[in-house]
């Protein structure tokens, strides 16, 4: 009913505005006359009576305004009127509007983008329902320097059987499949998973079903679930894929399901049942770790409860009498939140970037506050006139709020575009390893966040306007000669503080960026222990059906390497597993002949690699003692091994290890191998810091044992070539050709230069550096705009004064100096504060910087210089305008 009368009154005022207005006019005039009549009757002279009547009734316009305000639809009409007025005012000052809107959009948009990404990464990894309930199960060996590695099947079995704590558990092992039915032989990535894998993540297939426990058996595991991407790319996204049989690694697999587009754990093309035989779960296998295990907590179990439980499980295992090796090596089982394992590396950079982006937002808000402040005080006269004409204070306040709201809404709308573009750009720019499987999209919660910021800015800016002009007294400001000196001085002071603050924030960001960039360039010069430049690598995987004996595998590698050796432009070629900087780094225990195991130490432990002689020469790993492998070191001849300098130092500190005998400790009755050479230690996963791969961490001083590829068997491995002056394309072509000649059906994949592999390991740092640089650039630009605006405005305000000075004889250069000096004082102040703040804050980046202290003076100096240079330009342009003030013009204006 009320709504109806509001609508009615509003529509009436809309369509019959002039008529109503005219009627009001008439009514008021008639009332004046009636009142005058009354007074005349009481004895007043007619003129006086009419004047008295008019005074009593008050101003006609004011009366009309009050009547209008009283009508029911009044506020709606007011709102529209203010909206129109606000838009018109903005239209008159497009520059101001554009700068304000863009500034707001940049600040809000950047924040929304970053927080969308954070949300995706840490709170809602795609394809997982209830990610807080999913944990990974990890193992560690404190005394072997292995802090966080995958687990064994018996480890997993213990978790799986703890039904009270975990509602489901599963493990996975990465594998690859050769798929030959496409145009060229393709290498599809895959994972063998136990039947509960998808349940742990709460993921449902979009087509078909996932695995049953019966299918997760050694010889029954020929079903496959496709990933959405693989389904679209290799099988045309056709619904009739269900039930079809495809050939993988020359074995038939029946397609039983397809997963949805977000589910990418792990980021593979397909999943097959793991199908482990019961022997794998034999307790003796407890130290053979090779599986990635996950579990889902029961609804009523907290993470700390589950963690404590697993700790107890660990303890119980350790106390078992047969667990000697575990005790000696400091073995333990523990759980970690799934998101932390997958994204843990990103915590610090994300924190740094969140801070940076909030700085940008603060600077943006500072600029807008300054702009609005300037705008409002510029309209003091206008507001005074309107107040004198009868606009009530609340009315004026409302109108200012509406103007701010229009700006804020426009800013929020544009910020949506900025945020969307920002999120997409982040997704593209982020290193693939970090964000594999992530769908980068704006999400509704973050959108809400943006809207909240928008609302907050309306309140803030409206509040500023309201505060400022609530001090306006119409009578005072309408007087001609009054200069709004005092109010503009306070305003200038506030703006100066704002700009100084922005400059300080900008300096912090610049300093951080400088530090990161210096650190990165330092990393470029770290010596990894071998020469990656000029080496091209590729991966192959020999299907078990075709290459079922070691002899066949050996033959393959020999043929390929022979072929490569004869190819033009190739200096050396080799093969082996693993390759540095590919994320694989297997390790194992070994025994030294003549050194029986002592009861409390876990025994010798090393990284373990299978290589051909060419591996060393192609990568240019230096030989320190003895010899490399030769082609004579093959199956049937004496078993040999080469160790690296770290292993030599660790286990043979005072003697020559060449001639010593070692053998694998895990394989019983493994033959002894004679150490024939010592090579230099090489960096294998990271250029600096603790080596880590696949989320495993180990100390970088661990030594390595190399065995001859032809004495160990390698169903999968890497080929590498070094070319004398050939291009990477030519080299990869040679590899492909060589493999093709030996086996036309074998796919060659992951073709990469060694350099790009190393650079990829720097991915997170480079990403963080580029992002920080973008934010620092934004901050710098916004601060410069703010400074420019401030100085410009100051010059405009003081045009009069400048004119007087020049007329009185001041030189133009003096004027320039005066303006510049004032601007630069501000800049210096801001830089000083910023430097202090940066010194306090950059220690947060410590873990990220290599070879550079967080207080590196060179970086700080560079940052300060860049900032001051930009600031000088920002001050100089308006200062030049001050120089060219014509005193006559200036004095004529108010």
């Amino acid at each position: 009913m009320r709504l109806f009368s509001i609508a009615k009154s509003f529509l009436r005022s809309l369509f019959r505005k002039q008529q109503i207005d005219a009627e009001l006019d008439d009514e008021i005039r008639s009332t004046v006359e009636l009142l005058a009549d009354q007074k005349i009757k009481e004895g007043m002279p007619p003129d006086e009576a009419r004047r008295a009547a008019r005074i009593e009734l008050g101003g006609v316009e004011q009366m009309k305004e009050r009547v209008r305000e009283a009508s029911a639809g009044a506020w709606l009409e007011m709102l529209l009127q203010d909206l129109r007025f606000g838009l018109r005012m903005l239209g008159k000052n497009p520059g101001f509007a554009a700068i304000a809107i863009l500034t707001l959009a940049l600040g809000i948009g950047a924040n929304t983008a970053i927080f969308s990404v954070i949300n995706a990464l840490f709170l809602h990894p795609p394809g997982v329902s209830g990610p807080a309930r999913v944990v990974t199960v990890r193992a560690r060996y404190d005394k072997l320097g292995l802090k966080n590695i995958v687990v064994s099947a018996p480890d997993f079995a213990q978790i799986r059987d703890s039904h009270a704590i975990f509602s489901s558990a599963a493990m996975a092992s990465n594998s690859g499949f050769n798929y030959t039915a496409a145009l060229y032989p393709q290498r599809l990535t895959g994972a063998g998973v136990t039947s509960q894998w998808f349940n742990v993540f709460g993921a449902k297939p979009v087509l078909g079903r996932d695995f049953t426990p019966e299918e997760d058996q050694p010889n029954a595991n020929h079903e496959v679930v496709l990933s959405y991407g693989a389904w679209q790319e290799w099988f045309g996204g056709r619904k009739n894929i269900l039930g079809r049989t495809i050939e993988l690694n020359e074995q038939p697999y029946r397609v039983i399901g397809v997963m949805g587009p977000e589910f990418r754990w792990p980021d593979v093309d397909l999943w097959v049942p793991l199908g482990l035989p019961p022997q794998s779960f034999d307790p003796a296998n407890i130290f053979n770790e090779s599986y990635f295990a996950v579990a889902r907590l029961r609804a009523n179990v907290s993470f700390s409860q589950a963690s404590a439980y697993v700790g107890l499980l660990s303890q119980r295992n350790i106390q078992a009498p047969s667990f000697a090796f575990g005790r000696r090596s400091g073995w333990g089982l523990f759980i970690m939140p799934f998101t932390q394992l997958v994204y843990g590396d990103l915590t610090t950079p994300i924190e740094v970037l969140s801070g940076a982006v909030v700085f940008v937002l603060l600077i943006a808000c500072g600029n807008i506050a300054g702009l609005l402040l300037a705008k409002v005080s510029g309209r003091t006269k206008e507001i005074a006139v309107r107040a004198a004409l009868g606009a009530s204070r609340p009315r004026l306040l409302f109108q200012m709020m509406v103007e701010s709201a229009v700006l804020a809404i426009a800013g929020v709308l544009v910020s949506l575009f900025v945020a969307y573009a920002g999120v997409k750009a982040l997704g593209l720019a982020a290193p693939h390893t970090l964000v594999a499987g992530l769908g980068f999209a704006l999400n509704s919660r973050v959108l809400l966040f943006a809207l909240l910021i928008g609302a907050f800015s309306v309140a803030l800016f409206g509040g500023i306007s309201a505060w400022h002009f609530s001090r306006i007294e119409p009578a005072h400001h309408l007087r001609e000669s009054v200069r709004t000196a005092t109010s503009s001085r306070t305003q200038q002071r506030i703006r100066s503080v704002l700009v100084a603050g922005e400059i300080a924030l900008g300096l912090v960001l610049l300093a951080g960026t400088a530090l990161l960039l210096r650190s990165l360039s330092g990393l470029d010069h770290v010596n990894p222990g071998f020469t990656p430049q000029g080496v091209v690598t590729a991966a192959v995987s020999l299907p078990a059906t075709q290459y079922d004996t070691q002899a066949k595998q050996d033959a393959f590698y020999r043929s390929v390497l022979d072929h490569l050796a004869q190819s033009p432009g190739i200096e050396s070629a080799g093969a082996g597993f693993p390759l540095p900087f590919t994320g694989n780094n297997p390790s194992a225990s070994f025994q030294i002949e003549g050194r029986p195991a002592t009861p409390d130490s876990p025994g010798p432990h090393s990284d373990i690699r299978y290589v051909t002689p060419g591996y060393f020469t192609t990568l240019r790993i230096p030989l320190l003692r003895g010899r490399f492998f030769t082609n004579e070191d093959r199956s049937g001849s004496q078993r040999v091994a080469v160790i690296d300098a770290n292993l030599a130092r660790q286990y043979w500190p005072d003697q020559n290890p060449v001639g010593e005998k070692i053998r694998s400790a895990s394989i019983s009755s493994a033959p002894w191998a004679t150490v024939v050479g010592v090579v230099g230690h090489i960096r294998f996963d990271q250029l600096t810091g603790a080596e880590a791969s696949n989320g495993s961490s180990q100390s970088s001083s661990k030594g390595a044992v190399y065995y001859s590829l032809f004495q160990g068997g390698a169903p999968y491995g890497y080929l590498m070539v070094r070319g004398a002056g050939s291009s990477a394309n030519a080299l990869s072509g040679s590899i492909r050709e060589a493999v093709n000649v030996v086996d036309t059906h074998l796919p060659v994949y992951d073709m990469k230069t060694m350099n790009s592999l190393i650079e990829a390991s720097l991915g997170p740092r480079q990403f963080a550096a580029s992002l920080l640089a973008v934010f620092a650039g934004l901050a710098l630009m916004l601060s410069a705009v703010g400074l420019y605006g401030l100085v410009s405005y100051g010059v405009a305000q003081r045009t009069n004064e400048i004119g007087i000075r020049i007329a009185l004889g001041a030189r133009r250069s003096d004027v320039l100096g005066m303006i510049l000096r004032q601007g630069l004082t501000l800049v210096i102040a801001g830089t000083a504060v910023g430097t202090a703040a940066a010194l306090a804050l950059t220690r947060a980046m410590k873990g990220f910087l290599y070879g550079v202290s967080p207080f590196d003076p060179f970086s700080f100096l560079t940052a300060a210089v860049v900032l001051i240079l930009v600031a000088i330009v920002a001050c100089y342009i308006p200062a030049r305008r001050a120089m060219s003030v014509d005193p006559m013009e200036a004095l004529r204006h108010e």
Partner: protein
Amino acid sequence: MATEPTNLLQGTLDLMILKALALQEMHGLGISRRIEQITKGTFQVKPGSLFPALHKMEEAGWLSSTWGESENNRRAKYYRLTKAGRRQLETETERWGRISLAIGRALEAS
């Protein structure tokens, strides 16, 4: 001492206007004089409060207006109660009676 009605509840002014128009139609000035009359000088309604109230009540449908001629042959806008206005007058009168009774009792209580 005259009390400015807008210091009291807005509804009080509305009620006074309705009462003033109960017997005959009047123009704005006349309404103001009548209110002064029937309240024995306690309420002196300023035009600044009267006209907004009149227009609001007209919008609400309690009053209707026509242009007519005053005593001195001046044009003036005359207001009269509508049926809804009469109903509103009854309702408000009764409500006001209840309120004043309650307040009176409260003040007498110890």
